[in-house]
């Protein structure tokens, strides 16, 4: 059973909901399954929630059907501007009907097929379109368009119904035409049971028919069997006409039957609803299957689309978007965005733009650029504040209300060899010293020769530079060969007892695909327990940035990820700052700083607008 079904708008208002159990979100991903679909033009989201233990195969169909019905019934209300009110109280009935129908069809699917269908069809007499058997794939549109006379056939010939063989035949043009006539007959006297069975007769001459991929036959031999169309019209035309004839008779008869049932009360109301629902579903499917009509229509639409290309107000289709979107992808790749990220961005923007109308005097390219700008901004914008000084203040000088004791703020820096870990560490250190903080720099690189001496030089320089500013910096080192994690832990302990504000831990550079070196990081994260783990990534690196960011992000054990990136060497790449996008795409971790030069002061807060401008700038 479904736990919850909700219909909500993208602006967050729940329009209609039904829940069986009073469970509240958040749903746990391992216990509940969510199926959802989305109507972009209207900003509607349809969500079904059920327990993962139950494998409800029909929920997909339910969500789709409900979407179609709801949009058909209330689309006009939703399109109204400046309101969120949608009167949809009566939707309960439609939902119940769909639930019942799909649940029962799921139940029958499990048992033996033919007898159940026969039974159901006998129970539900005329005009009941509810119990279609599972259709053979590829024939869906056709058959659904003719649900009504299918229903009529069910009355007379339930037993011989053996999908898929006779169903395939039904998809045929001539048959449709005759079916329509039959349907008409049957609706004139709907309770006839022993109707003539025409199908076996026809089977004989059709033996040699060839079926093409769409399930249509080659129509050379028996065009004359088509009664519904002019004798020399093209096959597809006649077929379409035949179909429409079938449909129109079908609709007429349904109307009359609902008229009849409305006089009585009770169960008939439900059947009435059934008809309405199926009409909606059928017409929606019909709409999706029909394409442009005729030469005149297509000509007009071409002119219209050309006109709209210039003036704007054009509804974007996949074909319109394909070429410019690929151009956009190429552009991003040229900006050093990893192809993986570029493709994802392209797909998401394409999805966003499908069916969207361009503004007046707006070309497709500008619309795409705008959408890409929004996507990039959304991607790069961090979810939380990245004010480092404020974070440090909260930890080192907690307010009187909170029970936390003051302790030093621990930051550690990781990265691949040679990306500039020590340099960026000293840049951050310089920034903190300018804010009059007491900083302890920890030489956690106990491996590479000269690493400790390098940091010592940095610290000496920083001391000289900041003497006037009032900051204080010391180095903590245990020489080479020790375990980096233990050194870090000892340093944090020492800093706590000596009242440092910030502990900056340098680590050894490691290749992201070297499992042996990467596994040390987990222990490091556990022992040093840094408040922030920052990874330094080069702006120069290309496609490898994705793998680097991913591997580092996953290496700190469960529940611990990177807290931010420092992108170094941004001054060397000009506009090609695509690495930013690649790593954020790979990890969802925000970029905190960018390194823009060789000096201690050449570190900057990351500005999303700056990055987006550079990425979309096409003059290079």
């Amino acid at each position: 059973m479904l736990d919850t079904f909700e219909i909500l708008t993208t602006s967050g208002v729940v329009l209609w909901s039904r829940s069986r159990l009073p469970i509240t979100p958040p749903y746990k991903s391992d216990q509940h399954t969510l199926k959802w679909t989305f109507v972009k033009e209207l900003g509607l989201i349809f969500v079904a929630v059920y327990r993962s233990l139950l494998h409800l195969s029909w929920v997909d169909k339910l969500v789709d059907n409900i979407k179609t019905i709801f949009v058909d019934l209330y689309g006009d209300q939703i399109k109204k501007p400046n309101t969120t009110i949608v009167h949809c109280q009566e939707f309960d009935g439609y939902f119940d009907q769909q639930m019942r129908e799909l649940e029962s069809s799921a139940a029958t699917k499990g048992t033996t097929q033919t007898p159940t269908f026969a039974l159901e069809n006998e129970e539900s007499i005329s005009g009941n379109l509810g119990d279609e058997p599972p259709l053979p794939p590829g024939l869906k549109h056709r058959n659904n368009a003719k649900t009504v006379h299918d229903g009529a056939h069910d009355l007379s010939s339930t037993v011989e119904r053996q999908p898929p063989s006779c169903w395939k035949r039904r998809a045929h043009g001539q048959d449709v035409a005759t079916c329509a006539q039959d349907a008409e007959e049957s609706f004139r006297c709907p309770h006839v049971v022993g109707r003539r069975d025409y199908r076996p007769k026809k089977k004989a001459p059709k033996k040699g028919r060839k079926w093409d991929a769409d399930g249509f036959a080659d129509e050379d031999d028996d065009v004359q069997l088509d009664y519904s169309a002019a004798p020399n019209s093209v096959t597809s035309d006649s077929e379409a006409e035949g179909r429409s004839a079938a449909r129109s008779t079908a609709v007429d008869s349904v109307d009359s039957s609902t008229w009849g049932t409305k006089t009585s009360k009770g169960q008939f109301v439900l059947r009435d609803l059934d008809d309405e629902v199926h009409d909606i579903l059928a017409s929606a499917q019909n709409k999706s299957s029909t394409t442009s009509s005729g030469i005149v229509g297509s000509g007009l639409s071409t002119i219209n689309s050309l006109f709209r290309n210039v003036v704007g107000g054009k509804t974007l289709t996949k074909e319109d978007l394909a070429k410019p979107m690929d151009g956009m992808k190429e552009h991003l790749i040229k900006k050093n965005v990893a192809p993986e990220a570029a493709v994802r961005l392209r797909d998401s923007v394409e999805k966003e733009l499908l069916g969207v109308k361009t503004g007046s005097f707006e070309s497709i390219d500008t619309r795409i650029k705008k959408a890409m700008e929004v996507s990039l901004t959304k991607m790069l914008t961090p979810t939380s504040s990245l004010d480092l000084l404020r974070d440090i203040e909260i930890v080192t000088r907690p307010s009187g209300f909170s029970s936390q004791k003051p302790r030093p703020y621990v930051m550690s820096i990781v990265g691949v060899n040679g990306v500039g870990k020590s340099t960026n560490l000293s840049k951050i250190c310089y920034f903190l010293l300018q804010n009059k903080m007491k900083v302890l720099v920890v030489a956690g690189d106990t491996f590479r020769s000269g690493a400790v001496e390098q940091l010592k030089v940095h610290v000496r320089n920083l001391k000289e530079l900041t003497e006037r500013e009032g900051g204080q910096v010391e180095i903590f080192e245990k020489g080479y060969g020790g375990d980096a994690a233990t050194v870090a832990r000892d340093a944090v302990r020492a800093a706590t007892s000596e009242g440092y504000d910030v502990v900056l831990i340098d680590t050894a550079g490691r290749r992201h695909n070297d499992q042996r070196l990467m596994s040390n990081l987990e222990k490091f994260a556990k022992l040093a327990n840094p408040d922030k783990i920052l990874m330094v990534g080069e702006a120069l690196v290309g496609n490898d940035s994705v793998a680097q960011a991913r591997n580092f992000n996953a290496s700190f054990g469960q529940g611990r990820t990177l807290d931010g990136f420092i992108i170094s060497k941004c001054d060397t790449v000009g506009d090609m700052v695509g690495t930013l996008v690649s790593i954020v795409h790979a990890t969802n971790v925000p970029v905190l700083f960018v390194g823009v030069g060789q000096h201690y002061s050449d570190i900057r807060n990351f500005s999303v607008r700056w990055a987006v401008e550079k990425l979309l700038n096409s003059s290079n």
Partner: protein
Amino acid sequence: MPTAMEQLIEYIEYILTPSSPVFIVGALIVFLVPIIVHIFVSRATPYTNLPSIVLVGPPGAGKTSLQTLLERGDVAPSTHSSQVPQSIELTASVDQHLSFREAVKDDAPGEHKKFLLVDTPGHGKLRNFAMDSLVAKDGLRGIVFMLDAATLDENLAATANYLYEVLLALQKRVSSSKTSKAVTVINVLIAANKSDLFTALPATLVKSNLEAELGRIRKSRSKGLLASGVGIDDVDNEENDDWLGEYGSEKFTFGQMQEFNLEVDIIGGSVSEAKVDKWWHWVSERL
């Protein structure tokens, strides 16, 4: 080929010869095409210039709930995280103190004024909608900054940060407009929602907490790093651009914002208990 050629020439000759059908068709084209283009374009751009009140605030504060409550007038439906902004049209009476329930009715007494109430998503990644609407809106009359007074203790830093951004954007908007016409006062209401809950702070406490936190934020911001893309040269002339309130002042108070034509009020209330009349009055007075 020759027949086609001749036909073409015939057509051209016919078109170029002055005759009444050619005149009529020509005149029709000349007159109708601009009209059609105009209709086409004007239909695409909606015509609305109502005064607007923008709802901003951190996620989970109750922005969408308030909006729907005011629109429906009875009970707010349940809501989820907003993904897109949503504006609704409301009518407020200017001269009478009506409760919001009465104002929703069509036959409410007094003089009426229509306005747009714009709800914006509060999620960190979607705040650009809100920030854009603060900068771009012509008819902007007021901002309602909603916050959750019940969990303000834990979320003080995040909430204050967003409020800082909002106030700074408004301050920049005022200080950057150098036009001769009088700058309209923009009113900011800090709506301390969820007063029905036990842990909710009263409005005065919310105010003092926010002021203290905003003071700390602007202090740490002023010491922070430059944003990427800002050159060294641009720094000096925009010295006090990112400083909220009176430059160089020790403590931040909301009163300092008056210098920038920003009036800040703090009123408590509760959406779930429908105690929003004070906010509603605030809104109707500011239209």
